[in-house]
């Protein structure tokens, strides 16, 4: 009974995390299309939400990595997964409050690793999966996206350079419907699967599923719905801020940036690499900007992303570990997770109230 209560809390917390992931990432997915005039904000956001939903159904490789390849599922309990989720949400909240660009995906994996280590020691970490499938791709993927976008924009300008600007701009704007759609699909498939993986891990830990089980259909549908609703809700904030924070780029650059981001995320998803989609999309934008003019890129933002990269995994892991330690004070039952949930909800409400008083953060966290 007690473990079922914890499981319900874990599933609810994971879906809330998924919703906030979509909410945070709307800007990354649609900003380029809106910036170049390829789509109206309401259309771009609705289209992205639908494709986020569809994307969640096209693969389960990333979910399998999160559920089976990062920590030893045999020693995991629902409370460990819960503490990991709290670590991720708390770190996302801290970075959102201070306006630091961070990765929800890295926070999620860091939180789960931290709470698992606190519960069962360092042997619980599956180093091959953590290093080979998470840490190395996290560094490589944004660099590849940047390089592909830079080469792609050079290629585009070479092919269409002598054409009239009108037809070129119109052509790439149409192209951005395709590239923006692929980017939303890619975002849905990689990010929703992380939540599917965590819920599956909790179900395995609870004994509801066998150790080699894949995510059940209800988990896939729930995760897809949560991220799509988050993307749609986040869109209304984007409509308000569009035109003030988005980097100006032409339609060809937008097409190249979105295309590079989409192919890198889709290829990585195929091999089960859980990426920070935010970092990959930003890599694509920087690549297409730098290829035209190095000074067009906000290198300060790039520096902040690198710092956030280095901090997110250990910080979320530390909070996950502390949360697990706190829940164990109250034994192995549901009391600890229930108390932590109530405290977390109070803190989130307080942070939102303070943030609303101080004004919106400059940069949002992402997935």
């Amino acid at each position, binding site marked *: 009974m007690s473990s079922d209560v914890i499981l319900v809390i874990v599933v609810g917390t994971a879906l809330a995390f998924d919703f906030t992931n979509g909410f945070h990432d709307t800007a990354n997915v649609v900003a380029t299309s809106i910036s170049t005039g390829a789509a109206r904000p309401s259309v771009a956001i609705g289209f992205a939400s639908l494709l986020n939903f569809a994307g969640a159904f096209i*693969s389960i490789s990333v979910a399998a990595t999160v559920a089976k390849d990062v920590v030893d599922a045999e020693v995991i309990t629902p409370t460990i997964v819960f503490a990991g989720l709290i670590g991720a949400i708390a770190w996302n909240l801290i970075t959102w409050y201070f306006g630091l660009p961070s990765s929800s995906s890295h926070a999620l994996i860091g939180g789960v690793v931290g709470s698992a280590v606190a519960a069962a020691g360092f042997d619980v970490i599956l180093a091959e999966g953590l290093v080979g499938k998470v840490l190395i791709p996290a560094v490589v993927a944004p660099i590849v996206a940047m390089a592909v976008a830079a080469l792609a924009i050079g290629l585009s300008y070479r092919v269409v350079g002598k054409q009239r600007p009108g037809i070129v701009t119109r*052509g790439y704007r149409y192209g951005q419907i395709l590239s923006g759609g692929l980017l939303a699909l890619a975002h849905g498939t990689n990010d929703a699967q992380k939540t599917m993986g965590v819920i599956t891990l909790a179900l395995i830990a609870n004994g509801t599923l066998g150790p080699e089980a894949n995510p059940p259909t209800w988990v896939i549908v729930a995760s897809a719905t949560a991220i799509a609703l988050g993307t749609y809700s986040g869109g209304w904030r984007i409509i308000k801020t569009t035109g003030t924070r988005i980097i100006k780029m032409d339609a060809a650059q937008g097409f190249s940036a979105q295309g590079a981001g989409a192919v890198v995320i889709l290829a990585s998803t*195929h091999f089960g690499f859980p990426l920070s989609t935010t970092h990959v999309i930003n890599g694509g934008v920087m690549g297409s900007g730098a290829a035209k003019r190095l000074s067009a890129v906000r290198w300060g933002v790039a520096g902040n992303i690198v710092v956030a990269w280095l901090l997110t995994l250990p910080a979320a892991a530390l909070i996950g570990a502390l949360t697990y330690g706190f829940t164990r004070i109250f034994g192995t039952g549901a009391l600890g997770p229930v108390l932590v949930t109530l405290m977390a909800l109070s803190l989130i409400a307080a942070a939102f109230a303070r943030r609303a008083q101080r004004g919106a953060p400059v940069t949002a966290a992402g997935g």
Partner: protein
Amino acid sequence: MIATLVQTKELWETVVASVVAGLGVTFAFSVGIWGAGQFIELNRNERPLAAAGAAAVGILALAFVAAAVIIGIIVMTHK
């Protein structure tokens, strides 16, 4: 130790697939735009045969883009 942990084959395939697909689709789409631009320009200059050739190249290039996207999604869903 790190060398044994890195999934070199999968990582390399990811990089190659990203570069080939990213550059291939961008190049083909750009050729599609080039074809459309040339078609308009050559028609304006009353060169219908050359205009039809440019349009055919453009349409083929856009068909390649559509095929690449469809094949990519089929590969993703069949693992």
